[in-house]
């Protein structure tokens, strides 16, 4: 006969290790005065194009921005983003389908955060797994392209619910794919009431002014470094 078992209370968050690392990162970002935006979306939603445009515009305006890019394999995205001339670093996750706070911490080792106004973290293209992992970011942005369909938020409610801002991309293709913008907005609001939504086309530039104005309004004022210039893009 086997010995009787005993129940011992533990009460520990399974992601505690990540949460602790994320909290430390958030403090570092805050101390350095850098505003951190993470980007999540499904593969092919236009994350990299959107980020490339955002980085190059910020740089033109003397705002110091850099990016970390997570991918399972290849550094193609980093190479694309580097065209913006912003500092870019690739995090190759191997078989891991999401970024974790420790990976971000490791990737930032050679960078001086104080030299940055904005840091963007592009997560692995995946609408499921990244939702559980805090990366210490100030803002989590979820992207949805018009080619994906209006019901994406209902199919992946958790990631939309944990995001702070949504960006609908490729709106130059809206007509061609008969995108129902009203339904998309309704679905976003259903899973995340009150979420701010931007509609953009990186191809035509439509909507980028609003997005960049929003971003600039979040910039941490620093005693040194960039002068706060009004966004020049339209």
């Amino acid at each position, binding site marked *: 006969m086997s*010995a009787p078992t005993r129940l011992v209370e533990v009460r520990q968050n399974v*992601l505690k290790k990540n949460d602790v690392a994320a909290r430390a990162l958030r403090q570092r970002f805050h101390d350095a005065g850098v505003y951190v935006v993470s980007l999540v979306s499904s593969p092919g939603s236009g994350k990299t194009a959107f980020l490339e445009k955002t980085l190059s515009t910020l740089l033109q305006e003397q705002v110091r921005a850099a990016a970390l890019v997570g991918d399972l394999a290849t550094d193609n995205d980093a190479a694309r983003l580097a065209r913006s001339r912003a500092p870019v670093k690739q995090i190759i996750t191997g078989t891991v389908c999401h970024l974790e706070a420790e990976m971000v911490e490791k990737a930032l080792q050679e960078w001086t955060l104080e030299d940055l106004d904005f840091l963007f973290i592009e997560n692995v293209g995946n609408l499921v797994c990244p939702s*559980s992992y805090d990366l210490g970011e100030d803002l989590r942005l979820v992207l949805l392209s018009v080619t994906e369909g209006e019901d994406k938020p209902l199919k992946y409610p958790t990631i939309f619910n944990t995001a702070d801002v949504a960006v609908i991309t490729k709106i130059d293709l809206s007509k061609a794919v008969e995108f129902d913008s009203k339904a998309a907005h309704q679905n976003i609001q259903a*899973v995340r009431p009150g979420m701010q939504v931007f509609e953009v086309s990186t191809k035509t530039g439509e909507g980028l002014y609003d997005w960049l104005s929003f971003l600039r309004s979040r910039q941490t004022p620093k005693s040194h470094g960039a002068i706060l210039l009004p966004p020049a893009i339209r």
Partner: protein
Amino acid sequence: MHELSIALSIVDMATEEAERRGDAHIVAVHLKLGPLSGVVKEALLSSYQLACQGTALDGSRLLIEETVAAIYCPACQAERPLASIQWFCCSVCNTPASEVLKGRELEVVALEIQP
């Protein structure tokens, strides 16, 4: 599919806890799982078996208690069950609600050990 990473974290956490208690033999891990945790129960259960292989937890069971999601309803000014994970509103008065009070749990609650 991040359930395997989650399962590995559970195994690590339980192993550490067992070592702290003088190499207690763990028979089962009790886990609380919320519908908004982003983790799928079935996938986690099968990943757990894999994650346990070759560890002190080999052969142990993962017992999952699923919780109910709740929001703070600004109209009722009270905690209410979430209408649906596709519809973040109060299940009583239908007012949209974004403040999640319960449902994100992914927590090891207890370990069943054989002293």
